[in-house]
């Protein structure tokens, strides 16, 4: 009996060695194409880069570029703060919206297939050049506004309509809340476009909850409202975590993010290359910190159903 057990363990150990085989591509790729360039990029950010006939030459410069980025340069700090504010104002709205949309799209209704296809369409429309080309199109914004202005019944633009409605409540609600709501309504298009994958993940999550749980709770006399807060919401914890992290990363790395454009411009020019590397390292550090802290805060509260 003991020998059998030992044999089984040996077999398992032998099988587990195959794990390295499967992970090998990533191991090689990470070492050569991620870790090595990262270390080189740290080296660049700590050096002065000079062009020579044969290539380039590095001379150690210490923390000069970091100092310039954090203490001297006028744009970098402002853009970093902007990116943080943008991310954290959009995060709750994106999460709430995608959760709500997932709840709506989960249950059958006529035309659900079509509605789902359209809701997921942003997944193919927000990447790379397709997202950024609209910014360089000079008359597109005018065309968009001209047509919507007409839709909201002759009010000059849709934006002032929002302000008008919100100002009606200005006595009852503090100004910063109104400001937040106004921004959320103005940015509704960006929010919908940024929610494609999150809706997918939430629907996947909702489908893992077995219907028998709801049946049991309704037999016990729970209302739909109660079973939502006591069953659905806690069960979605892991997906909420995944979506929070994904949304933060997506927002920080979005091609429309002005800081990213600035960094890319710096990295394109040879004389500013070290500076660009330093700024991108500062930014990467902040992203890691934010994601780490968020993970630590949320994962403590998340309920795992095993």
């Amino acid at each position, binding site marked *: 009996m003991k020998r059998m057990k030992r044999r089984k363990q040996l077999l398992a150990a032998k*099988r*587990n060695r195959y*794990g390295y085989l*499967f*992970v090998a*591509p*990533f191991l090689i*790729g*990470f070492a*050569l*194409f*991620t*870790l090595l*360039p*990262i270390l080189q*990029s740290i080296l660049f950010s700590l050096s002065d880069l000079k062009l020579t006939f044969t*290539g380039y030459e590095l001379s150690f410069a210490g923390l000069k570029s970091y100092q310039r980025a954090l203490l001297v340069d006028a744009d970098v700090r402002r853009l970093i703060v902007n990116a943080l504010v943008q991310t954290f104002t959009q995060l709750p709205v994106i999460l709430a919206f995608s959760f709500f*949309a997932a709840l*709506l799209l989960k249950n059958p*209704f006529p035309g659900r*297939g079509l*509605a789902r296809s*359209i*809701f*997921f*369409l942003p997944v*193919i429309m927000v*990447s*790379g*050049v*397709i997202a950024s080309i609209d910014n*360089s*199109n*000079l*008359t*597109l914004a005018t*065309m968009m506004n001209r*047509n*919507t202005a007409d839709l909201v019944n002759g009010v000059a633009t849709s934006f002032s309509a929002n302000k008008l409605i919100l100002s009606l409540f200005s006595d009852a609600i503090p100004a910063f809340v109104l400001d937040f709501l106004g921004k959320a309504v103005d940015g*509704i298009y960006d929010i*919908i476009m940024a929610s494609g994958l999150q809706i*997918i993940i939430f*629907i*996947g999550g909702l*489908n893992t909850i077995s219907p028998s749980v709801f049946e049991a709770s309704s037999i016990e006399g729970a209302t739909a409202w109660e079973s939502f807060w006591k069953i659905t919401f806690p069960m979605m914890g892991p*997906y909420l975590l*995944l979506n929070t992290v994904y949304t933060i990363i997506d927002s920080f*790395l979005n091609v429309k993010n002005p800081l*990213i454009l600035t*960094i*890319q411009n710096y*990295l394109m020019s040879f004389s500013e290359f070290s500076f660009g*590397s330093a700024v*991108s*390292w500062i930014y*990467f550090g902040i*992203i*890691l910190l934010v*994601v780490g802290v968020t993970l630590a805060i949320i994962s403590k509260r*998340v309920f795992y159903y095993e």
Partner: protein
Amino acid sequence: MNDPRSLLRRLGPRHWGKWALSLAKAVFILGICFTILYPLIVKFSMSLMDQRDLFDRMVKFIPNTLRLSNYPELIGYMKYWTALGNTLWLSLAVALAQVFSSSLVGYGFAKFDFKGKGLLFACVLVAMVLPPFVSITPLYLNFKSFHLFGLLPADALVGNPAPLLILSLTASAPRCALYVFLARQFFRGVPKEIEEAASIDGAGTVRVYFSLMLRMASSILVTIFLFAFVWQYSDTLFTGMFYSGLDTLSKRLYLLGYTFGAAISMDASGTAGNIGYISIMQATGTLMTILPLVILYFFMQKTFVQSVERTGLVG
């Protein structure tokens, strides 16, 4: 259902709350769908316009003069068919390579317990949040100076698809870490018993993976393929860096506003119309770039949505 009275009862006051709720739902869903489709509708209407319509405040969606020649002109400017062909084969090759590597690695992380797994998975998470521009320039320099101890000619790995394929096959292209993560989540949900049964029947670990697991995972593979394909299709950064000679749709679309400005201003007849003409071309170009993706999406969306249904993505 056939009884008219039961229908009447369903429309009665007791059910008004329900009707109101469905109405609110319908309005909400239609509203969101409209918001998503609206930019496409505007671009489509722009793509049929003459420059004068663009600056005419009386013109809403429907142009005064239908200008269908925008499309052939755009196809000329973008070298559309060549660019489309290039984009399709490159995206297909890269996406297939990424599907292969990331599912392999994801399976390794999901189903085996080996030493250092936790640390390695932390590396996946770091790769997931790493901004691509942090590493791209050193990466380029490395590929450029790589000659395998003098065996390869200079610049052998730059200006061809090799770097993109190498990065994809080693799951280190941008966003590959995310696909590894998705694949791992899927394979974690596959019951152990299936593999055990197969290995009792005499299938080795590698064979279990290739002839059993990959088939079971087809839905998540389709999802990863779609993401990887779209990403490569619309990428300008990596493709521009490593394979700048290739005319892809994303590159031609990106260039439309810049270098074409000169060419356009020479043969456009209007005086104030050049900006408008470039805008119309950009709108048409965006549409023509998205169109193949939308076609692909509608072919794959059934499997894609099904995979959403089934995936037990657990965070």
